[in-house]
């Protein structure tokens, strides 16, 4: 079961809240200080991508972030609740046509490149409910 779950309306400002929460909970879960920057950045990337998808396809639905304390890992799952679409995963960070003004980055794939370069372990899955990005980092175990 997720220890902490955050859901938020798909707005760039809330990506900051998501980063803040993920970093605080990771620290509390015993993730090494030296890895917290990576957690902050990777979670931000995954949430930015989900916000972008939602703004395009389902702006009324919240984006979901689940943080779990495992025995010796800290796991993060970011889920968008938009119906799957084959172009979606490769479209990360791509200039989005409809939002125009700038939520999206300009180069396709940059967001995933960052995630892949940072998370110790990444799994992307497409389900009927949407896309889920699951990442994890080693932790010192539950410290409470």
């Amino acid at each position, binding site marked *: 079961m997720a220890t902490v779950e955050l859901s938020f309306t798909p707005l*760039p400002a809330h990506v*900051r809240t998501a980063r803040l929460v993920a970093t605080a909970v990771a620290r509390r879960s015993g993730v090494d200080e030296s890895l917290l920057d990576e957690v902050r*950045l990777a979670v931000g990337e995954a949430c930015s991508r989900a916000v972008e998808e939602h703004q395009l396809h389902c702006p009324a639905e919240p984006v979901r972030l689940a943080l779990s304390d495992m025995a010796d890992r800290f796991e993060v799952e970011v889920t968008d609740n938009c119906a799957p679409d084959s172009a979606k995963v490769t479209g990360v960070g791509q200039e989005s046509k409809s939002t125009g003004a*700038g939520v999206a*980055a*300009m180069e396709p794939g940059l*967001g995933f490149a960052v995630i*892949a370069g940072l998370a110790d372990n990444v799994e992307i899955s497409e389900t009927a409910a949407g896309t889920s990005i699951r990442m994890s980092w080693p932790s010192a175990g539950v410290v409470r």
Partner: protein
Amino acid sequence: MDLKLDHHSKDGIEIVDVEGEIDVYTAPRLRELLIELVNSRYYQLVVNMEKVEFLDSTGLGVLVGGLKRVRAHDGSLDLVCTQERILKIFRITGLTKVFGIHDTVDEAIAARRSEK
């Protein structure tokens, strides 16, 4: 911390000082500034990232977009950055090969002038 943007001319090159977090929330402002500079015919840019605390792929995308815009006018966009945590993001995305990255603004200017 939010994003703070400033710019000034030095030796005919426009220096953009960026401070704070360049992320999905603030990157649009940096994008607007770069577009505005190019529209005002500043085609030689140096973006000073020494005070950047956080950079995500949206920020990277805006920098790449700026580079494309100045190049369309035979211009340049160089970066100043010595912070390991920021450099790492350029490295894992392969962008260290795309941008000239320098240790100081003066070095960036010198490198650019010697190329001309």
